[in-house]
């Protein structure tokens, strides 16, 4: 029962960091209450605006460091959209670039100590994923009409298999917004929770003899996890964006 006694000594729960709290006291969270989510979303938008407005204000031929970063981000996403979804998808580049910037900035701002990761909430990512899903579906029907349904009718497969494949394709099409949103939220939530679990082990040096071993190990683990989280924060934004491009490609060119 020693472990049970020790775990009572923990002052926080690993999932406490994801609680949505009103900024200015009180407990009730209504539709328009400013909460920590609102605060960190606003900071995200501010940071993006600062980078792109201040960074590209000079329009220097030899770019400053900030302008280089802004240009790199722009070129990176532009190339991704062009390579994955094709030239005619560039009309949607502003939307995809907005998504990428918002996700990458809120992921990285969430890594600051005491920060709140807005993308760790399925409510936030689901809004983005459902918006992508609706956009892609509407674009598909507007561009191709009923021909968009050929996305589900795999013409390269034997005729007997096609109804079965159509069923699987339809299911996988409607699971898209679910997996698209849960992938991002789950990754961010899992990483931050793991860091907090290790952080909960760190003060054991104050409680018991074994803490002498546990504390340095857990601090090392926090450092390693933090490094991994920096990688994950970028890769998940990249994956979200590239999957948006893939879905867009399906909408624009539905024929297998």
């Amino acid at each position, binding site marked *: 029962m020693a472990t049970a006694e020790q775990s009572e000594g923990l002052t926080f729960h690993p*999932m406490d960091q994801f609680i949505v709290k009103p900024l200015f006291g009180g407990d009730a969270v209504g539709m328009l209450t400013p909460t920590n989510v609102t605060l960190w979303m606003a900071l995200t938008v501010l940071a993006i605006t600062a980078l792109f407005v201040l960074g590209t204000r000079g329009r220097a031929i030899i770019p400053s460091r900030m302008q280089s970063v802004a240009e790199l981000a722009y070129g990176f996403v532009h190339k*991704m959209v062009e*390579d*994955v979804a094709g030239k005619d998808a560039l009309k949607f580049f502003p939307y995809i670039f907005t998504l990428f910037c918002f996700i990458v900035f809120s992921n990285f701002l969430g890594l600051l100590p005491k920060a709140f990761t807005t993308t760790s909430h399925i409510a936030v990512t689901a809004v983005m994923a459902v918006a992508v899903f609706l956009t892609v579906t509407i674009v598909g029907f507007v561009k191709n009409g009923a021909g968009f349904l050929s996305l589900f009718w795999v013409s390269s497969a034997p005729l007997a298999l096609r109804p079965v494949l159509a069923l699987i394709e339809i299911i996988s099409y409607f699971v898209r917004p679910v*997996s698209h949103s*849960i*992938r991002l939220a*789950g*990754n961010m*939530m*899992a990483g931050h929770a793991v860091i907090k679990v290790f952080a909960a082990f760190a003060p054991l040096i104050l409680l018991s003899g074994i803490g002498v071993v546990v504390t340095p190990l857990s601090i090392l683990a926090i450092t390693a996890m933090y490094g991994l989280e920096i990688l994950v924060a970028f*890769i998940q934004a*990249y*994956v979200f964006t*590239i*999957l948006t491009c*893939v879905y867009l490609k399906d909408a624009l060119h539905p024929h297998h």
Partner: protein
Amino acid sequence: MELAAAAALGKFIGAGLACIGMGGSAMGVGNVAGNFLAGALRNPSAAAGQTATLFIGIAFAEALGIFSFLVALLLMFAV
């Protein structure tokens, strides 16, 4: 055993069992990355163009592990 205690026990056991799914996802991600590396070492000039495919493959394999993580979370905090 009391019903509430049994329910709590089942919750924890279920959450632990759900985590087995993450092992499958780990094998999937390793398989994708390993095969990409094997292919990339055979033909390094073609590798750069396929990194997007690599990440898409990893994302699909990983999503199923995240689903099992979600089931564990739902069992722990929502059920």
